[in-house]
């Protein structure tokens, strides 16, 4: 069934849009400042940027405000905005080994280079509702910031360091599977080239980097529960800033700022490729904009599952994973069902009525035949 074009209704549509705006602000509360959203809705901003496929914290905050907090809608707005600007630069490849690390943990090894750094996390605390947030004041915030700031002794500060990676330990021991020489390693851009299956790994990683977190989580979780049978362990999860460089019009390499990313390397045991050959570990890779650990973990899980199509589970099927985790398309299709389908539905209605009528007519004829047979 397809939707049909309709005309008219301009005034009602305008009024509906106006009504939506009225519902956004009818509470007559002070307008939310964009900088407040940026600062205090950090993780929502990161999700919008990651799923919108564009790193622009301030614009993500505006989109979130405009969409009344609907992350899907905000990501959609950003994705649309992205198409209005020219792409003038391609960055040099970002190097996550140069990351200013804010969090770095491993579930595989207790002792890792530089130690486990918990960073800003709620992983180890109870999720109880903090009702004090309802009455938080600027004085409370200042008091916390002063107290927090005083916990670091300026005389005893250690110098900034970058850290080696956990996977280096496995690599040094020769425990990682060698790259599959038969895999398609072309670099493609799914924003410029329609994806075809089987897709090169670069396309899969790019699509997952801007996929919807919930979709990735559903499929990643399905695999972790046994549908596709990947039993992964977090090798190393990192969150922090990485520098971005481009080449300017004069050909010089220029620093243009830093972006926040979350990176995860997922370790999975691998069967021996051939009988008698040793088993290896394989690494699934996840990287996304902002602080979004669920996304990075599930992306890296699905990076591994999609390289094992023979398992036959949804999470192992590239097309299933990539098309159904594409949040903007999925949301667009789902919501198009609300658009007028009058003509096609009327056609379906006529066919159904006719079938029921035919069935009813056939029933009457059958009944008549039975009466005639009984009378013979």
């Amino acid at each position, binding site marked *: 069934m397809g939707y049909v074009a309709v005309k008219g209704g301009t005034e009602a549509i305008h009024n509906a849009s106006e009504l939506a705006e009225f519902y956004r602000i009818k509470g007559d509360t002070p307008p939310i400042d964009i900088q407040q959203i940026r600062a205090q809705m950090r993780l929502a901003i990161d999700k919008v940027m990651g799923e919108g496929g564009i790193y622009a914290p301030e614009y993500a905050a505006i989109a979130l405000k405009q969409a009344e907090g609907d992350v899907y809608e905000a990501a959609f707005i950003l994705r649309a905005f992205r198409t209005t600007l020219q792409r003038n630069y391609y960055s040099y490849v970002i190097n996550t080994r140069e990351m200013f690390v804010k969090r770095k943990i491993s579930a595989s090894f207790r002792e890792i280079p530089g130690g486990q750094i918990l960073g800003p996390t709620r992983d180890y605390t109870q999720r109880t509702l903090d009702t004090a947030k309802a009455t938080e004041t600027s004085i409370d915030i200042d008091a916390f910031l002063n107290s927090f700031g005083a916990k670091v002794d300026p005389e005893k500060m250690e110098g900034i360091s970058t850290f080696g990676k956990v996977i280096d330990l496995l690599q040094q021991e020769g425990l990682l599977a060698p790259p599959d020489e038969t895999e398609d390693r072309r670099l493609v851009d799914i924003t410029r080239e329609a994806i075809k299956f089987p897709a090169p790994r*670069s*396309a899969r990683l790019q699509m997952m980097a801007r996929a919807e977190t919930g979709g990735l989580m559903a499929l990643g979780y399905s695999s972790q529960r046994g549908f596709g049978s990947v039993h992964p362990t977090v090798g190393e999860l990192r969150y922090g800033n990485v520098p971005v460089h481009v080449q300017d019009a004069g050909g010089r390499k220029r620093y243009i700022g830093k972006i926040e990313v979350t990176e995860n390397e997922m370790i999975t045991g691998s069967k021996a490729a051939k009988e008698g050959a040793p088993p290896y570990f394989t690494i699934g890779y996840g990287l996304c904009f902002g602080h979004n650990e669920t996304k990075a973990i599930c992306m890296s899980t699905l990076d591994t599952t999609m390289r094992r199509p023979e398992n036959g589970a949804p999470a192992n099927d590239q097309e299933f994973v990539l098309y159904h985790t594409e949040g903007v398309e999925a949301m667009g299709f789902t919501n198009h069902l609300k658009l007028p389908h009058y003509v096609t539905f009327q056609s379906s209605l006529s066919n159904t009525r006719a079938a029921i009528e035919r069935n009813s007519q056939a029933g009457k004829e059958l009944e008549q035949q039975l009466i005639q047979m009984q009378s013979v």
Partner: protein
Amino acid sequence: MQEQDFILCECELASLRAFVASIEENFEVTIAKAPSTCMTMIRAQDTVELQEFYLGEALTTECEILVNGQRGYGICLGDEPVRAYCIGFIDALTQLPGADLQAVYTFLNEQLQLIRKAEQLEYNQIMRTRVDFKLMEQE
């Protein structure tokens, strides 16, 4: 060059704007290309097999400034027209033959100290969360 860009991208905008405003009147400044937003595609690669891929785009501001005829390019992440202009201006100025750059270097050094100090403080706040988990049987 890259450290200069790093400082100019990371320093406080108000300080940068004030510094550039204090010296730009000494030069003939032409805006060859006014600050405008565009996109930068971020290239990334996985850490094991080094498979390159596109992570997504980043909002970027760019401009071209001529200082006494010397061209400079200002590029930075975000919608930052003032910062891009200032970067372009200083980029041109630092390439201008014979220009007295003492004030620029003083400004850059001061700002670098502030940036490093803030970074070090944040780093040390983060390092307070470093943990050495003990296995239960070690208790």
